[in-house]
């Protein structure tokens, strides 16, 4: 899993892999192997070598608050570098990123169920899945495979059932 965090105008790139209680975190050319558990909601106990990081994380409307050792950091998750974050709203079928359409799973008049994958967009070597926000029928597919799609463009028009 690849994540970007924004804090005080800096963007932090992190990858994290999970294998049960173990987490492998790549950040700033260093790999950290930790064992972690959530003691109670938001309270993490993270073992890093012989050190224990105790922290509390809560999610606000737009940001996360991280409490570590008396300090609090206000962090926003960000979309891929150079990509503006779009507001996610119910039923939004606009592309969240600028990229290339690599797979179109539906055609006009198809019936889909909520959660079905409609389109796959690639950007920065990652796939982003466009899913049906509700049951319905495809009115129009706006892009075909290998098309370039810009952030905010409507991928598929879907009529609600």
């Amino acid at each position, binding site marked *: 899993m690849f994540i970007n*965090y924004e804090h005080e105008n800096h963007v932090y790139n992190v990858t994290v892999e999970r294998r049960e209680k173990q987490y492998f*975190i790549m950040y700033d050319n260093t790999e950290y192997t930790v064992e972690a558990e959530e003691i109670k909601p938001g309270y*993490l106990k993270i073992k890093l070598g012989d050190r224990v990081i105790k922290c509390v*994380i809560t999610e606000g409307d737009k940001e996360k608050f991280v409490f570590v050792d008396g300090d609090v950091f206000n962090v926003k998750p960000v979309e891929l570098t150079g990509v503006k974050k779009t507001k996610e709203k119910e039923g939004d079928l606009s592309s969240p990123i600028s990229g290339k359409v690599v797979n179109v799973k539906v055609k006009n008049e198809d019936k889909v169920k909520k959660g079905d994958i409609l389109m796959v967009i690639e950007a920065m070597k990652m*796939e982003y899945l466009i899913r049906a926000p509700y049951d319905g029928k495809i009115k129009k597919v706006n892009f075909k495979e290998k098309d370039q799609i810009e952030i905010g463009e409507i991928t598929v028009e879907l009529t609600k059932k």
Partner: protein
Amino acid sequence: MFKKVLIANRGEIAVRIIKACQELGVKTVAVYSEVDKNTPHVNLADEAVDLGDPAPIESYLNIPKIIESAQTIGADAIHPGYGFLAENPDFAQACEDRGIKFIGPTPRVISLMGDKIAAKKTMMKAGVPVIPGYHGVKQDNVSLIKEGKKIGFPLLVKAAAGGGGKGMRIVQSEEYLGESIESAKREAKSAFGDNTVFLEKYLDRPRHIEFQILADGYGNVIHLFERECSIQRRHQKIIEETPSPVMTPELRKKMGDAAVAVAEAAGYTNAGTVEFMVDGDLNFYFMEMNTRLQVEHPITEATTGIDLAKWQLRIASGGELTLKQKELYQRGHALECRVYAEDPSNGFLPSIGTLEKVEVPTGPNIRNDTGIETGMEVTPYYDPMLAKLVVSSEDRGETIRKTIWALSHYVVLGVTTNIPFLKRVLEHDEFMRGNITTHFIENHFKDWTIAKGGWLPVDAVIALAVYDSMHSRGDEIVRYKEADPHSPWKHVGRWRMGAGV
């Protein structure tokens, strides 16, 4: 004792007073504005009265509304807390007029102490030292130079309309007095449109040290030792401790006697605080008397074992002060940190929002006076103080270390607080050594920001990654191109995308 007390306040101090009443078996009435409807002080009280509009002038400062509420609900006394109406003689008078006991001194004493110049005159008559100065109408240079020489050097020339250090001059010796007065006047004129200046003795390495007083209606007056309150930002205290690191038994005796003399000279009753300025040579000067329970009263309670809020109630209901000066002593050390919803790296500007998570540290001799809880809204209407952390221990060093521990475990998420800042102040070498003055924050923390250079510490990054990994639904962003042997995803763990900037 009273039957029912209305607490004309909000937040932690209302909670503190309600608890004292409950311990004494007194019924309590909270008041609240509509934005405070679901806050701890309201929920804790037996009854609560809605004051409506959140604007202070319509709610917590609305004298007729509060008095009427007290009468309607059958309260026989009102405790004003601190701030709001606590030092308003009209409010104390209005209570008296309607036959409700005001828990505090008489309206006359509140008025006297509210008039800073009259208060100083009374204190001079009582033989209590005040800061020598000239606040007169004669503003010609000849008169000012004459008055300046009387005060002695170094002295401070300051604009009457002053603020922010404009029109302020420190004069080290007589030869610079004339020119300093002239330049201060020029600056005052251009900054404030008024060139009136005051002269005051300049205190070198000034400290703010205050004494707690209790006085009953039968002429018994005691002091409960000092509180060192020099650590201030924007002239408001943020850390207080007792005993003061500079206090000696001789000075304590002298200042304590002076504080009692102040209370006696004023005809003071109930709990009060006499504030002094103390200079680098340990000369002390009366500044003012606060005619209320102070924010920082818990550190006195922690070191004397005396419950000041309960004594306020006993004294106001006609009880006799049975504590004797010679039976009082200080034990150990206590320190209070005020937790504010404010941003120290941005000029201490208040911060508002929802408290997403609140968890205060607990442990032996750790006291939390709070008026907040998880889910509560911090609104822009009132003082941004959220809570007080009061820690006591055997000596100063241990108390500081214990407080640092407590602050490191003090969780308030959702609004920016000064907790990290408080911790840095306590960790500062000069604070540890007790070398503190009222200039401490501006001298040592002028341009302080939380994350130096804006960097997130590695621990926070790890914590976030772990948290997000635990909580990710995991299917929105997926890896692909597994067939590509050069895919960076094949090398996760030894590869990094982009710089860490």
